[in-house]
């Protein structure tokens, strides 16, 4: 069975370590990958694509050495493989302009401001992964334990495929 990945991108290794630790409960369902730059993130995405797997969600910092997070998200929006990937900005420093850009051109799914709380991150990841399933049409059954029942129920009730 193909795997659905979560990718975390931040240029500060300590921050990356903390995020991954907080996403531990997802790891046995959705392998978590990490990258410390936009370039590395692209390499990881290529590997995921090559092995026939999927990328469900990216949690991305904005201010990074080299290419910034919003530009990475925009380029992902323009690629078929990552079009459905849920795009979450996790940042303390994105200005209004960059955020507007992310919303308009990368269809930003969610914005988490630093410093974040563990509960908030888990809640957002749960909801967003659920939206990914509804949108991409993957079978939700094996993941029922980890997805967000409220979002699922609402989607079934509305008869809609996700929030967009």
């Amino acid at each position, binding site marked *: 069975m193909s795997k659905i990945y979560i990718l975390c991108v931040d240029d500060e*290794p300590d921050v990356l*370590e903390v995020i991954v630790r907080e996403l531990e409960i997802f790891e046995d369902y959705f*392998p978590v*990958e*990490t990258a410390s730059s936009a370039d*590395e993130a692209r390499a*990881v995405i290529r590997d995921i694509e090559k092995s026939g797997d999927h990328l469900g969600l990216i949690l991305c910092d904005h201010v990074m050495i080299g290419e910034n997070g919003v530009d990475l998200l925009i380029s992902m929006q323009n690629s078929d493989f990552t079009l459905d990937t849920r795009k979450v900005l996790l940042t303390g420093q994105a200005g209004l302009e960059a955020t507007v850009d992310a919303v308009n051109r990368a269809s930003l799914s969610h914005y988490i401001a630093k410093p974040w709380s563990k509960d908030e991150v888990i809640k957002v990841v749960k909801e967003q992964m659920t939206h990914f399933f509804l949108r991409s049409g993957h079978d939700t059954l094996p993941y029922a334990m980890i997805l967000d029942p409220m979002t699922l129920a609402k989607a079934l009730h509305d008869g809609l495929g996700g929030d967009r």
Partner: protein
Amino acid sequence: MFGDNDVNELIARIEELELPVFTFRKGSQILEIDQPNDALYIILNGEAQLYRKNEDDDLVVVDTLKRGSFLGLISFWTKQPSFSSSVASEDLDCIRVDRRAFDRLFEQDRVFSKAMQSLFIDNLTSRYRRLVNLNLKVDKLTRDLEIERNDLRQAIEDLERTRLKLVNKEKLATMGQLLAGIAHEINNPASALLKSVESLMSQFPELFHGKESIVESQDNYELLRLGMESHLMDSATQRERMRFLENAYPHLKRSLIRRLSQVDDLGIPLLESSIIAANKKAENIDTLTSRIRFYEIGIYLRGINLSLERIVRLVKSLKNYGRPDSGSRETVDLRNCVHDTVTVLNNRLKHYDFSLEMPPTPEVSCYPGEVNQVLTNLIVNACDATEEGGAIRIACKQVKGGVSIIVADEGAGIPEHLIDKIFEANVTTKNSGGNFGLGLGLAISREIAQKHDGKLSVKSKLGKGSVFDFWLPL
């Protein structure tokens, strides 16, 4: 006094000529502006002033007339209303000649007509002379005014510059106090935390080791120690390790693989037995998790320790950086100034290919706060001029008679026509992207350099970058 003889002659013959003499008291009006006048007055004694209204309707003295002068000459001659008001500025005696008397005497009396002609000429000559002088005076006044206006303009510019400098200085002083205050407030708890973590790191492992041990377990003790000595792994290395461990131990869940991937090559053998046992019973998995936890606790302790050290270092730099100058020179190692400023500006510099070259240098007598200010200006300018990822090089080295701090960038460079002006106030090249400064940074920096008997110079090439050299004498 002109026309004296003529006037004397007239006076001598007043009675014979049947001319009336009028006396005006000081302040009384003789002629009124815009009113008809049909007589000619010749001043015998005293003084009259002529008034006209200016644009604001205020009366202005336009001429002062004395003995021998005519009053009402223009209106009498042209038969137009009086051109100005005349008022006796002191008690005044004058002959009044109305038109009839004038015509009669002018035709019949040779002495009168001769005196009149001569007085006319005198009056007109004198008025013309005054006009010429007045024009010269106006010209001089205009020039004086122009000079004064330029002086004023310069003064206003100077004032504005001084004001901006003061505002800037005040801001810096306030910021310095604020920084020192914050730094102090952070420093205390951070230092306390650091002490606690240091104690924890030395004492906590002992709980699992030697005489003090509550749970004797050499391996767990080792795992803890290894965790505390571990190095942060970059994401690519961790990915590789996870792949390796997944292949080696396919029975482990990915969350365990991730946790295990943090453990270094010395730690894995210590865990090996638990790893192999972990494919059987749930409690064996718990055992493995607990044992990995020892290593992780080591990592956390190390992480806290490193972060705290970073905070303490930053706070120390902030304190040095923001410290207000004591008012007298201090003998300092300039490399500390560079170090403090670079630490404070790390947030900007980390986006560049930044290098620091600082061989030992002799100490220099200076105001460290001001040196920091210059360095801040130069480094911020270098960042502003350079694309992210570009090279910025800072060097501090001994040169002839002093120490030079070099801030070099490979940024936009300075246009040739601006390079001589770059140290003047209000000159800035940062006029694009809405990110412009006051254009004071370099002006203030050069002033600071001069105050230290030092030099601040630049070499730059458009498109290649700029090299600023801040030199302070030993």
